């Protein structure tokens, strides 16, 4: 088999855990002990991180812009909630179900996503997300409409660990999902398929010259990304025991675009840190001023363009090079 730079070395480097990633994982675990009062917030941050990674696979690696990625997040959330309400409330089963539902919907949409350019993709994804939102709004019997889906129970994790009031199980659950997603996506982006995605982003016209089927690759990336976004949504629905329309909404789609930009698109650690920073900042600002928090967020985002062009990811890279120089 191949001996790529990414696949060489030990087990940990094969799953992407080295250097700055190790710090990210250690920090995530440490947050459990450092902020035991804020486990619910931390859980939400992990959800946002998974969602951001799914979007980054699409935009940062495949170069597919989307203004409707929350559709898959929300589909995953509703899928997990609806399944739990029917009585099949094992959390892992819910995750798998949500991933399948979201990935299938993404797969169905691929023919209209892979053709066209960035601009048409923005319109198409925006349109599709609006349709999904409106469908969820109308189908009250299934989704609870504007009231959302509140009352469902989630069975103990692995049949052992009850989702407790303090959110300890939720924390561990969401962190585990994040960690596994990260390692999985790391393998994907460093595989020949992942390299091909980056090649497509850089020069799609030339990919057929090396026998790379551009549309098929983009379709796979879109489907995969949709599935992972569905997992993120499912974790949020399961840990908050709630699924609602805002999980599908345009705000969430726009937010994840901002997160990817802040984190540094195409940089998995950067995007993860960016998601955590964004979620935390949003929480802090809305505590400081429930009315004007969006103003603060906007200022930070604008400043980030000047301070950290290329996002947190490029900051991290510069730090690393300085250290090793």
């Amino acid at each position: 088999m191949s001996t790529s730079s990414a696949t060489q070395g030990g087990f940990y480097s094969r799953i992407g855990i080295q250097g700055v990633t190790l710090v990210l994982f250690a920090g995530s675990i440490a947050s459990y002990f450092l902020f035991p009062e804020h486990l619910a917030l931390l859980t939400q941050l992990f959800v946002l991180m998974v969602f951001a990674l799914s979007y980054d696979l699409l935009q940062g690696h495949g170069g597919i812009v989307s203004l409707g990625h929350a559709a898959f997040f929300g589909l995953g959330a509703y899928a997990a909630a609806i399944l739990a309400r029917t009585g099949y409330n094992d959390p892992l089963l819910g995750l798998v179900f949500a991933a399948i539902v979201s990935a299938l919907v993404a797969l169905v949409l691929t023919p209209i996503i892979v053709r066209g350019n960035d601009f048409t993709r923005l319109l198409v994804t925006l349109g599709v997300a609006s349709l999904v939102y409106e469908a969820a709004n109308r189908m009250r019997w299934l989704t609870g409409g504007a009231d959302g889906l509140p009352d469902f129970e989630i069975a103990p994790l692995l049949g052992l660990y009850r989702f407790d009031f303090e959110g300890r199980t939720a924390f561990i659950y969401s962190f585990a999902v994040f960690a596994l997603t990260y390692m999985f996506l790391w393998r994907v982006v460093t595989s020949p398929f992942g390299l091909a995605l980056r090649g497509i982003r850089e020069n799609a016209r030339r990919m057929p010259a090396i026998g790379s089927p551009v549309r098929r690759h983009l379709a796979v990336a879109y489907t995969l990304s949709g599935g992972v976004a569905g997992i993120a949504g499912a974790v949020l629905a399961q840990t908050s025991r709630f699924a609602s329309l805002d999980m599908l909404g345009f705000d969430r789609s726009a937010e994840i675009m901002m997160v990817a930009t802040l984190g540094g698109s195409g940089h998995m650690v950067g995007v993860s840190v960016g998601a955590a920073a964004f979620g935390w900042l949003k929480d802090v600002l809305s505590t400081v001023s429930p009315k004007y928090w969006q103003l603060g967020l906007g200022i930070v985002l604008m400043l980030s363009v000047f301070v950290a062009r290329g996002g947190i990811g490029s900051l991290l890279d510069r730090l690393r090079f300085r250290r090793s120089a």
Partner: protein
Amino acid sequence: MLLEIEGLTAGYGDAVILEDLSVSIDEGKGLAVLGRNGVGKTTLIRAIMGHTRQFAGRMKWKGEDFSSVPAPDRVALGIGWVPQERDIFRSLTVEENLLVAQRPGRFNLDSAYELFPRLKERRRNLGDRLSGGEQQMLAIGRALMTNPVLVLFDEPFEGLAPVIVEQLEHAIKKLRSEFGFAFIIVEQHAQDALALSDHAIVLDRGKIVHSGTASELLADFDKTKSLIAV
């Protein structure tokens, strides 16, 4: 026959560049395509790869018509392309540029590094931090990673220092003896191309004006030059 082209008429949009062109190449043989700028040499390569509009004629691969095979799948047939623009992916490292094209077969990363040790030294460099010669080595290495039976070289020596050209020629010869692939080489430097090839065709305005063995064209190079300069 490995590749047979019969009465090919091809071009872009409504423009016809190649007219009623017939040529064939056997397994393990080298074909030089000579001619001035703009006579359709690159178009011939692009037509074989499926990047032109084919108006008429047939292209057969091991006896089967592949005119309707989509461009990316032609690589799977066993046709490798070293484009004139080289088209190195700048955001990928040297090694990633090679791996992205990898298809199963005898030629792998180690073969590429053995062929061009320079690439091994530069394996972690990004594609945009390479000299022209290194880029060409990488473009050749990347095409070979698809494990082709036929390699199409489009002006591989263009703009390179003579010493680099020599290195590349040596590499192509070595590859032929070790891996035994056939190739088509399009070159302005007729002498270099002929020295590598078995057969040659001279194109003018999209048509073949001369066809013969490379050695006979080399032996009477003054006549060859006049053919090309028509």
